[in-house]
């Protein structure tokens, strides 16, 4: 790495970007103009509207069935309201109200209690959803309140009591939230969302231009033959994106803070001593910097991957969408920062932002957030450098879209064209959508039947249909080949020991990051289905063992074969874990997925992983079914915690069994792939 060259690239890119009027507008001018105009304009319109409503006034029909000096006083107070007209309620009062000729009907009644005290009931008819009607109600209520006070005081004095008795109990607020915190709460909710989105969109304007733009303008090749290392080019460009992303962020932050402050002071919130929370802003910039680096790295890799700027902007959309959804977490009232949240990118910044704005954060969360984002960042930039060194990516030809047309059945080419990583991801996303919408719909009524239907119709059927529609040989592709006897004998040892180990891993995670109560309750439901054991066995063990395996060890690995067996196993396991839509079980499911992938891809027979999967699930079922049996206590402590000493024999058995499995299978599939 050559720092001098990096700076040469960086300075040139910065100069070039800053000369682009479009970029300048997006990054500097837009935020400066946008917020004041939005907020101040909004305020002006709002106050103007209120003024208009006030001036419009209202006509109120009065139905006075009391007619005493008290009702006269009340009505007198009402008539003093500016712009308001009182009319006596006639027969047609209701129809006038419906046709909005009058805004309210006020009815006065009185009643006498057992000890002879007369009380008055005043009914105010209005429409809560109508702004004008609502304002009318508020005005009437305030006017009546005022006369109520003086009337009661007079009554008390007449009875020879001190009117002060009305203030016998006086509740007074002692709000410990200072104006800083009040402003922080408002800002903390909206700011993180806007900041994260602004950071991303600002950086993406620049990123698309930096590599995809160079490809489009045919300048990339000259840069590559210049006396500079590719890594230095990547890092120079990367720093450019970070810089402009951060500039955009800072401009946004100040612009929005000033505008908000203006709005709050207009709204009458006391801002004495609040000012700009300067310290908070510095902490936030420190926390946003890693996110800026992460976004920059991802955007740069997208830009590198894309053939032109248009393509880059298209590929940026999913990133923007996911970030928006994650950033929205700051709008949710109950979610607060904890160690687990601090590990989730974007979510951690949003929550930290909120906490910092309210001056109520922990330093450990700040460090965890920065650290976890930096780890991802390093991975992303490493990937980008790799990508930048890949000839196939850097010089992708325009006609990359191969088609199945013209390729006959049985032609090996058909399979090669169909099973591309791109198609694999498309299939996965569609399956995920199907699971999310159809699967959860199926499970609403009856969890048990719903689960079974999900396995059959959401997971299995589409996979088989795809093979049928594209006329691909299902048996071969899904590896529906009988396993060797030796393999089948080893699989139970592998499955049981792996289940124990993965369960222990879950326990450790749970000990560090306790799962939420609500979550455990939901998961428990699965095992407490009110049905005979054989049915839950079918639903929980057999169906996933067949259906999930056919998808994740049968179909999915075919899409990623070009990456080699190791990467393939990891990739499909990641997808398998993501498919469970459960962040708390991600790691355990991922580990199991890798094992299952290995079993099938290594042996060439999907039955091995089917048996293993079914065994794994039935073991969990078994433990719940026999929980409380005295003999199970040897392995279990507390309610359902496995004893940690189990790890030792489990590791030993797993290693031996895997070693033997590896030997028995002899790597015929490895040769194939």
């Amino acid at each position, binding site marked *: 790495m050559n720092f001098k060259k990096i700076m040469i690239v960086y300075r*040139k890119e910065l100069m070039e970007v800053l*000369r682009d009027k479009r970029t300048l507008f997006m990054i500097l001018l837009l935020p400066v103009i946008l917020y004041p105009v939005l907020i101040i304009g909004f305020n002006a319109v709002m106050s103007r509207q209120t003024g208009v409503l006030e001036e419009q006034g209202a006509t109120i029909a009065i139905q006075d069935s009391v007619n005493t000096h008290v009702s006269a006083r009340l009505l007198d107070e009402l008539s003093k309201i500016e712009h308001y007209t009182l009319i006596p309620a006639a027969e047609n009062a209701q129809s006038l109200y419906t046709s909005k000729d009058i805004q309210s009907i006020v009815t006065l009644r009185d009643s006498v209690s057992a000890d002879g005290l007369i009380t008055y009931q005043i009914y105010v008819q209005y429409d809560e959803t109508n702004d004008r009607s609502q304002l009318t109600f508020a005005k009437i209520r305030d006017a009546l309140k005022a006369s109520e006070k003086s009337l009661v005081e007079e009554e008390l004095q007449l009875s020879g009591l001190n009117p002060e008795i009305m203030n016998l109990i006086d509740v007074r607020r002692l709000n410990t939230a200072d104006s800083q915190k009040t402003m922080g709460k408002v800002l903390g909710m909206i700011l993180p969302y806007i900041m994260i989105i602004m950071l991303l969109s600002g950086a993406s304007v620049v990123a698309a231009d930096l590599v995809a733009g160079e490809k489009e303008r045919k300048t990339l090749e*000259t840069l*590559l*033959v210049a*006396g500079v290392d590719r890594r230095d080019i990547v890092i120079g460009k990367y720093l450019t994106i970070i810089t402009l992303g951060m500039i955009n962020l800072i401009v946004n932050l100040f612009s929005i803070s000033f505008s908000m402050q203006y709005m709050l002071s207009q709204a009458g919130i006391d801002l004495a001593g609040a000012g700009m929370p300067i310290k908070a802003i510095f902490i936030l910039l420190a926390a946003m910097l890693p996110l800026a680096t992460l976004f920059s790295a991802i955007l740069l890799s997208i830009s590198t991957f894309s053939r032109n700027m248009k393509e880059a902007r298209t590929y940026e959309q999913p990133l923007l969408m996911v970030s928006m959804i994650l950033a929205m977490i700051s709008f949710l009232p109950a979610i607060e920062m904890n160690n687990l949240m601090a590990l989730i990118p974007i979510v951690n910044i949003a929550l930290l932002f909120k906490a910092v704005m309210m001056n109520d954060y922990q330093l450990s969360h700040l460090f965890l957030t920065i650290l976890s984002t930096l780890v991802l960042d390093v991975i992303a930039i490493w990937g980008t450098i790799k990508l930048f060194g890949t*000839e*196939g990516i850097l010089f992708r030809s325009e006609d990359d879209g191969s088609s199945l047309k013209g390729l006959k059945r049985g032609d090996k080419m058909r399979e*090669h064209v169909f099973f*591309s990583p791109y198609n694999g991801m498309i299939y996965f996303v569609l399956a995920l959508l199907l699971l999310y919408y159809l699967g959860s719909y199926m499970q609403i009524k009856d969890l048990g039947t719903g689960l079974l239907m999900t396995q059959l119709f959401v997971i299995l059927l589409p996979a088989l249909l795809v093979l049928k529609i594209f006329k691909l040989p299902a048996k071969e592709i899904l590896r529906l080949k009988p396993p060797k006897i030796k393999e089948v004998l080893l699989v139970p040892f592998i499955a049981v020991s792996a289940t124990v180990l993965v369960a222990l891993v879950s326990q450790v995670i749970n000990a560090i990051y306790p799962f939420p109560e609500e979550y455990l309750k939901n998961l428990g439901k699965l095992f407490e289905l009110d049905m005979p054991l054989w049915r839950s066995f079918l639903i929980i063990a057999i169906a996933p063992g067949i259906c999930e395996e056919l998808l994740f060890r049968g179909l999915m690995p075919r899409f990623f074969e070009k990456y080699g067996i190791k990467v393939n196993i990891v990739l499909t396991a990641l997808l398998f874990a993501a498919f469970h839509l459960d962040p708390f079980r991600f790691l355990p499911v991922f580990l199991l997925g890798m094992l299952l992938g290995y079993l099938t891809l290594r042996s060439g027979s999907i039955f091995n992983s089917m048996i293993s999967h079914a065994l794994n699930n039935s073991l969990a079922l078994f433990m719940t079914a026999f929980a409380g049996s005295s003999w199970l206590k040897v392995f279990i402590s507390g309610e359902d915690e496995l004893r940690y000493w189990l790890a030792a024999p489990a590791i030993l058995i797993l290693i031996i069994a895997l070693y033997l499995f590896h030997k028995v299978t002899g790597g015929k599939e490895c040769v194939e792939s």
Partner: protein
Amino acid sequence: MISVHNLVKAFPQKGGTTFYAVNDVSFSADDGEIVCLLGVNGAGKTTTMRVLSTVFKATSGTAEIQGWDIKTHPQQVRNNLGFLTGDTGLYNRLRVHEFIRYFGRLYSMKDEAITRSMNEMAELLDMKDFMDKKIEFLSTGMKQKVSIVRSIIHDPPVMIFDEPTAGLDILTARNIISFIRTCKERGKCVLFSTHIMREAERLADRIVMIHKGRILAEGSLDALREETSQTDLDDIFVFYVNQYTEGAKVEAHEF
């Protein structure tokens, strides 16, 4: 000088097959010599030059630029090489002198050396009037001159031109041709590729004919004429292509 030894560049294709864009290519070019890589579109000219300029990695075989191996010393190879193509793009938002200085700095040149070299080239190519202009406002001919200066700012001993006149009008193309001659006069080793026979005839000291990634023939125009008993370069080229196709047919029969 350039020397290429059994160079192979293969691209894996969809369907598990491999496409050999450059297949066992060997040739050399000396200082003060213009060598032309002649072939039809898709023959492997651009791929060969991209491997030589370290944009692509060689699958097997290797090459040396001024004695530096492209595999082990890519940085030194780039520093000894000027590279120019007909459809090179430029950074539109930079001024001409900024653009040239950028590349000079990437070649680790000192600022004074860049200025000196830039002024000399501006004089030679009659560019003084637009050195301070932004590139987006230049004409095609002016842009091509900027590209030329960019490729030679670090005074490399070896120049590679990939289809340097492709897509250029006649006047601009003439500038390039005369620049290539200037390079030779200054003792540089020049490799240029083209599919235009006339260009090869007019410029090249030696011609390397390339077809489907393989070298068909190599030699001076006179030597090639003598070997094929044809006078026209077009006919010479067709002669070798036919010879190659027949050979491939025979080979196919044998296996």
